[in-house]
Structures are given as structure tokens and as C-alpha cells.
């Protein structure tokens, strides 16, 4: 039988250390919903989502109650809409986003991802239309999330798309200026995007995925931090070992919930995403784990090494705990969603440049970073280009979710509410990248021998 100590340890992790299941995400293929008439396609999309996901929220709540573990979000990811909508001849895909929003509302999920396009090698007509629709789509809907993959290790970097995404992000911020540019918090630009990621805003249901699937994202930075508090001053072997054991326990929860949800919903189990996803709540911060390792503030020299150790140990511990892992799997470092990151930026310890270095050793990228509203589209594109280059060369996923907050300047604070948190406006390099971005074209795929 389970010992009292083990029972109490689990309960303490949940009650005091913020252990939770961050999301159960149902992936739904919409590939049978294409139609030459936009209205019919949208009707098919709505019907399919509301049919397959009708029980998702209830099953999530039941599991939450029976196992006593909070499941924070129930979400849906669908096939990239560019692939579905391009069979019709409509010029504007905003109506498709509105349909997704309506379907998400009907089944009670808090986000739906998949207003997406994969353009790493070039655009199809539908992808061009979808990207142009993003700013209006994100301002006209509440729950729809959008993502664009602009680069892969095998295809290189589509610099035309990188250039365009700078403009799209600026326009999205302008259209949602009343909410601090909130639309940009629902838009991610990727390199090497995974097809089974359960986390928003970058989730979509990839083309290699089955008809319907359940993917689960776990959380638990607070649990790791508390475990490390018990090994103060110990060497890094002990630190890594402690993180591995804790990650194992956290991931077992994800595995259990994923299996149970897929069984009850009659849908296949996809993956558990081994991520440490922070929230703005105190005691749920990745930055504080790094500080627990001995750094005065996140961003101090040594931060990248600390993060590399954390990320690797989480994967090692988590892999054994789950039968299938995937998605983004790693520690997230979103600035606005992590109390320790917010504090480090406010105190001047953490800059965009340091965050960029940190993204070389963890998932996922420059995430939830607020910059001055007058940052040019070209500068934003150049930030994206730098970040995707890291992903392409290092054969990993990287992403940019950046918010040029209208009317705000360095040092101001912008609040997004809820899990999206709040962010201090960060300084960007003021020198121009205009001529670099205006070149356009593609940066060729890298060579993967001669690794230096």
C-alpha cells in the first residue's frame, strides 16, 4: 500500500507547490471539411468540432474531481486553417476564425489553436490569404490562436514570410491597441514547429496526426523549486538527479490524466508534453528555479548553463514517466507569465539578448515579450530572423511571441490578465535592420556535417 508519506507528498505538491495539469488539448483533423463554398466548409468545421469535443470539458472536470489534481485548461487544436480554407475562393479568412471562436465557445474550451499556416519554403494562395487575415481575425475573436511556421532545418528560412510577419504583428497590435496589443499574445512565429504541441498559442493539429487525439501538457515549476530547496549547496550531480526525480513524478500525473481522458473520450492518446510551464502566480516560476541553483537574479551570468541543466534533467526524468512524449517538451521562459522573469526584467537583470541565448538550450523561444509600441516592423522581423536561425541551425523548435505595445515605452508595464500575466516593456536594439529584412528571399537550409 501507498505510505502516508507518499500520500502527503502528492497532496502537498498539488496544494502548496502548484502542481497541475496545464492543459488537455484535443487535436481534431478538419481535412474532411474543405469545400468550394466557404459557408459549407464553415458549417462542416463547426459541426465536427462541436461533435468531437462536446464532452471534453466535462471529462476534464470529472478527472479533476476524482483524482484531485487541477486541470487548468481544456483546449482544442485543429488542422491549419490555410489547408482547409483554400479550397474556397474567398479572399478573407476572418469568417473561418469566427467559426472556430463560436465552436470553442459552444464546447466551453478557453482557446482553440490552428488559425495557422506552414510557409517555411513558400506560400500557397490559401496561406497568403490566411496570413493577411491574421490581424483582423485575432482582433475579432477571443479564443482563436494563430501560428505561422517560417523556417525549418530542412528548408531554411523563408525571409519573405519573416518580413511579412513583422508587419502582421504590428498590425495585430494596432487593431488590439485597447487591450495592450493582446492580439499578439495569441500569435506565434515558429521554426521547426511540432505537430502535436498541446500548448497555446502555438497548438495546431499537424498533417501527420490521426483523426482525433488527446495531448496533455503538464506543469510544476513550483514543485521543482521546492525539491531543490532541500538540496541547498549540493553539487550539480545532485541537482540534476533531484530535478529528474521530480520531473518523473510530475510527468506521471500527465500520463495518468492523458490515458484516462483518452479512454473516457474514446480518442487515441497522443503525447505528454514534458514542459515546465510557469504562471504569474507566486511559487510557479521557472526563473525562481534558476535562482534556487545559486543565481542572484535570473539573467545573471550562469543563467544559460542553469537552464540547460534544468531542461535536460526535466526531459530525462519525464521521458521514463510517459509512454509517448512530444510537443515542445522543455522549460518555458515566457516573460509575462513568470513572476521571477518579470522581476528580473524590472530590475534590469534580464535583457532580450540574454533571453535569446537562453532559448538556445530550452523550449521554446522569445515568449511573451513586450517591446515599445514604436518598434518598427523590420526590427520585429529581424528579432524573428535571429530566433528562427537558432532553431534552424540547432535542429530544434524556436518561436517568437512578441507584443509591440501601442503607446508604451521602455519601463512601462502592460497587463494582459489571467495566465498571460503582465510584462515590463523591454528595450530593443535601436539600430536599423531595415535593409537586411527588405532583401527577402530564402536563407538556404544549413549543412549538418562540420558541426562547429
Amino acid at each position: 500500500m501507498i505510505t502516508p508519506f507518499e500520500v502527503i507528498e502528492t497532496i502537498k505538491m498539488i496544494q502548496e507547490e502548484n502542481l497541475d495539469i496545464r492543459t488537455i488539448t484535443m487535436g481534431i483533423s478538419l481535412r474532411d471539411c474543405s469545400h468550394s463554398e466557404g459557408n459549407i466548409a464553415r458549417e462542416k468545421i463547426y459541426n465536427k468540432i462541436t461533435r468531437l469535443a462536446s464532452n471534453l470539458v466535462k471529462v476534464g472536470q470529472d478527472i479533476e474531481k476524482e483524482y484531485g489534481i487541477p486541470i487548468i485548461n481544456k483546449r482544442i487544436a485543429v488542422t491549419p486553417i490555410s489547408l482547409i480554407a483554400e479550397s474556397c475562393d474567398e479572399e478573407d479568412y476572418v469568417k473561418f476564425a469566427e467559426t472556430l471562436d463560436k465552436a470553442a465557445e459552444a464546447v466551453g474550451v478557453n482557446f482553440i489553436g490552428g488559425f495557422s499556416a506552414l510557409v517555411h519554403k513558400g506560400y500557397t494562395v490559401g496561406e497568403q490569404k490566411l496570413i493577411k487575415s491574421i490581424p483582423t481575425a485575432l482582433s475579432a475573436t477571443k479564443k482563436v490562436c494563430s501560428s505561422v511556421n517560417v523556417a525549418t532545418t530542412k528548408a531554411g528560412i523563408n525571409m519573405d514570410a519573416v518580413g511579412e510577419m513583422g508587419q502582421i504583428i504590428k498590425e495585430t497590435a494596432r487593431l488590439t491597441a485597447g487591450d495592450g496589443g493582446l492580439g499578439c499574445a495569441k500569435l506565434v512565429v515558429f521554426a521547426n514547429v511540432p505537430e502535436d504541441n498541446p500548448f497555446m498559442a502555438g497548438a495546431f493539429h499537424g498533417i501527420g496526426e490521426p483523426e482525433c487525439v488527446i495531448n496533455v501538457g503538464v506543469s510544476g515549476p513550483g514543485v521543482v523549486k521546492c525539491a531543490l530547496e532541500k538540496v541547498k549547496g549540493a553539487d550539480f550531480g545532485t541537482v540534476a538527479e533531484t530535478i529528474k526525480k521530480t520531473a518523473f513524478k510530475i510527468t506521471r500525473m500527465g500520463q495518468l490524466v492523458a490515458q484516462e481522458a483518452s479512454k473516457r473520450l474514446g480518442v487515441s492518446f497522443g503525447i505528454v508534453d514534458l514542459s515546465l510551464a510557469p504562471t504569474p502566480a507566486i511559487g510557479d516560476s521557472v526563473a525562481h528555479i534558476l535562482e534556487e541553483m545559486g543565481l542572484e537574479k535570473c539573467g545573471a551570468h550562469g543563467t544559460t548553463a542553469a537552464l540547460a541543466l534544468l531542461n535536460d534533467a526535466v526531459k530525462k526524468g519525464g521521458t521514463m514517466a510517459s509512454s509517448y512524449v512530444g510537443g515542445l517538451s522543455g522549460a518555458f521562459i515566457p516573460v509575462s507569465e513568470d513572476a521571477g522573469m518579470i522581476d528580473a526584467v524590472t530590475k534590469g537583470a534580464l535583457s532580450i539578448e540574454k533571453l535569446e541565448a537562453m532559448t538556445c538550450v530550452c523550449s521554446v523561444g522569445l515568449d511573451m515579450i513586450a517591446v515599445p509600441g514604436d518598434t518598427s516592423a523590420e526590427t520585429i522581423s529581424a528579432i524573428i530572423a535571429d530566433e528562427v536561425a537558432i532553431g534552424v541551425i540547432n535542429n530544434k523548435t524556436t518561436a517568437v511571441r512578441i507584443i509591440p505595445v501601442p503607446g508604451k515605452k521602455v519601463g512601462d508595464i502592460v497587463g494582459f490578465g489571467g495566465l498571460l500575466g503582465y510584462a515590463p516593456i523591454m528595450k530593443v536594439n535601436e539600430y536599423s535592420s531595415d535593409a537586411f529584412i527588405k532583401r527577402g528571399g530564402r536563407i538556404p537550409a544549413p549543412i549538418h556535417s562540420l558541426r562547429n
Partner: protein
Amino acid sequence: MRAVITVIGKDKVGIIAAVSNILADCNVNILDISQTIMQDMFTMIMLVDISQMKVIFSNLSDQLEKKGQEMGLSIKIQHEDIFNSMHRI
């Protein structure tokens, strides 16, 4: 199907009686009870069999939680699998 009930709080007369009354009403069988003082708190852990339970799980869970509030204790019931999966390979 088995579940674990945990009672955490200040020790007082009648805790076991209160919990086992609810369990008897719901036709839940108690398989094992252990109690200890952990970090200055009274902790009671009960392993119960819920396969013949007469009510739905959430109903029992609500009744226990309500009783806990009345007595100034935390009373929780959780499916046994959550502990097995976390602590057993």
C-alpha cells in the same frame, strides 16, 4: 475500484466516526486506516473500496468536503491511481 481519503488538521473527538458514518451511508467499505502526526498536523489516511458505492464519486467527495469544513479539517478523497502512478513504477 479503490480510493484514498486524507484528513488533515487539528486532532479532535469524532473524526473517524464522522467520516465512517458518511462512508457507511454511501456503502463504501474501509480497507485500511493509518494515522500519524506529520509536521505538527494530525493526518489520517484511509484506503476505501468504492466499487459498491451507492452515490456518484462527486457526491461523496462533496459530502466529505462539507463535513471537513464543519469540523475545521481538510477531508479529501482521491482515486488511488494518482498515488500509485506517482510513487510506483
